[in-house]
């Protein structure tokens, strides 16, 4: 196996060196946020220091002070809700399934999208320690949980140069589809 680059939050310009397709690990604090947390942050402000932060698209299963299961949720739902986080200094978005070309455009020169294997909730939780919570009234799935990561395995899905594995795969799929089903 290829050696992974080990990243730690807060992130800086090292994210600019990452290239789509590269395996990395992420350590340090990340903040979970799904649809409702994004809406709340746009209304009431970001409750953590966004500079160099990593936002994890995830609604975990928490029991007491433990993270039991915490795989990624579908990032595309946050496509239209992400710009303010990047403007505030967030350097990495972690999730599954990729994001829109508009988000990839906004990440150029400043941030990356890191893909986490969907459904691998116990694998992810085995690298996590719960550190805090914001907006707990939104409920377990939608609250912002501050979680410390210990080498979570990820792959760079969209790099800061705008290269996007998901859209490349999607373009190839579209060509295949048209070739097969053109009428």
């Amino acid at each position: 196996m290829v050696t992974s680059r080990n990243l730690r939050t807060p992130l800086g310009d090292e994210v600019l060196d990452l290239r789509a397709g590269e395996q990395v690990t992420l350590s340090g604090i990340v903040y979970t946020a799904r649809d409702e947390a994004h809406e709340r942050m746009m209304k009431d402000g970001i409750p953590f220091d966004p500079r160099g932060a990593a936002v994890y698209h995830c609604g975990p299963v928490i029991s007491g002070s433990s993270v039991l299961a915490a795989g990624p949720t579908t990032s595309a739902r946050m496509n239209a809700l992400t710009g303010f986080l990047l403007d505030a200094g967030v350097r990495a978005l972690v999730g599954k399934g990729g994001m829109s070309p508009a988000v990839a455009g906004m990440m150029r020169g400043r941030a990356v999208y890191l893909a986490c294997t969907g459904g691998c909730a116990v694998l992810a939780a085995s690298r996590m320690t719960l550190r805090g919570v914001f907006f707990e009234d939104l409920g377990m799935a939608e609250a912002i949980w501050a979680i410390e990561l210990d080498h979570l395995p990820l792959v760079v899905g969209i790099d800061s140069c705008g290269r996007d594995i998901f859209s490349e795969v999607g373009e190839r799929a579209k060509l295949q589809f048209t070739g097969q089903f053109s009428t």
Partner: protein
Amino acid sequence: MMPLPGEERLFAAVSEATCRALREAEIALPGDVLAAIRKAADLETETVARNELANILENIVLAGDRGLPLCQDTGVPVVYVSLPSSVPFTQTLYDGIADGVRTATREIPLRPNVVSPLDRKNSGDNTGPGMPAIHVRPGKSFTITVLPKGAGAENMSRSAMLLPTEREKIPRFVAETMLQAGGRPCPPVVLGVGIGGTFDSVAALAKEALLEPITTMDPFEQRLCNAVNSLGIGPMGLGGKTTALAVKVKMAACHTASLPVAVNVQCWAARRATVEVRW
């Protein structure tokens, strides 16, 4: 919730069986699904895709070892009951299943996923009006089958009312569903395809197709599966050979002027379990 007088024992037995089925489904994948994922991992040659499948297989082992749900999206409870004539078909059956879901939510634990649709208020216990979704059929044995359904894949599902002359468009519709979905439903997926019936029943057929073992596919199912895999979407949409582990089809008769088709998308965590009700 209190059981009907005289049906306390039935209520308790149904509740216990529902909870037991959920525990089994949420923590361990059925053998046929696990075998299909292992086979996909053996076939894959690209590094990124191989790593994704290796993570999935490691996650399956860890969930089993720790007795924890495979995925944090523990789904909404979809329940199928086989009911012999000796068991009374009353509200107790529905109430017992809901009670089992509440217990499972507390004890496994499951993430509370069920909200009211417009104000998005969470019930906190994975039940609500019309939820769990319960389907009852007559049968020889008294069994409860659960199919916890996560939203990432469910949201990518589609149905269409095709014209009777558009039978050849079915493979296109199935492949197009995954083309639009890309990596969002956590591929490699299992696709349940319903064909025929009515506007409402075709979606139910598609979901029931997901109850079928994926060990074998008939030639039509294999053709649909090949069409999907030729897209190269791969594990998590990062590219690769296996986009669908299997496609399963269920059909019903339909109106001579209709051709309803539905595709229910299921992520790689194709969770299902059947248990006998002990009573």
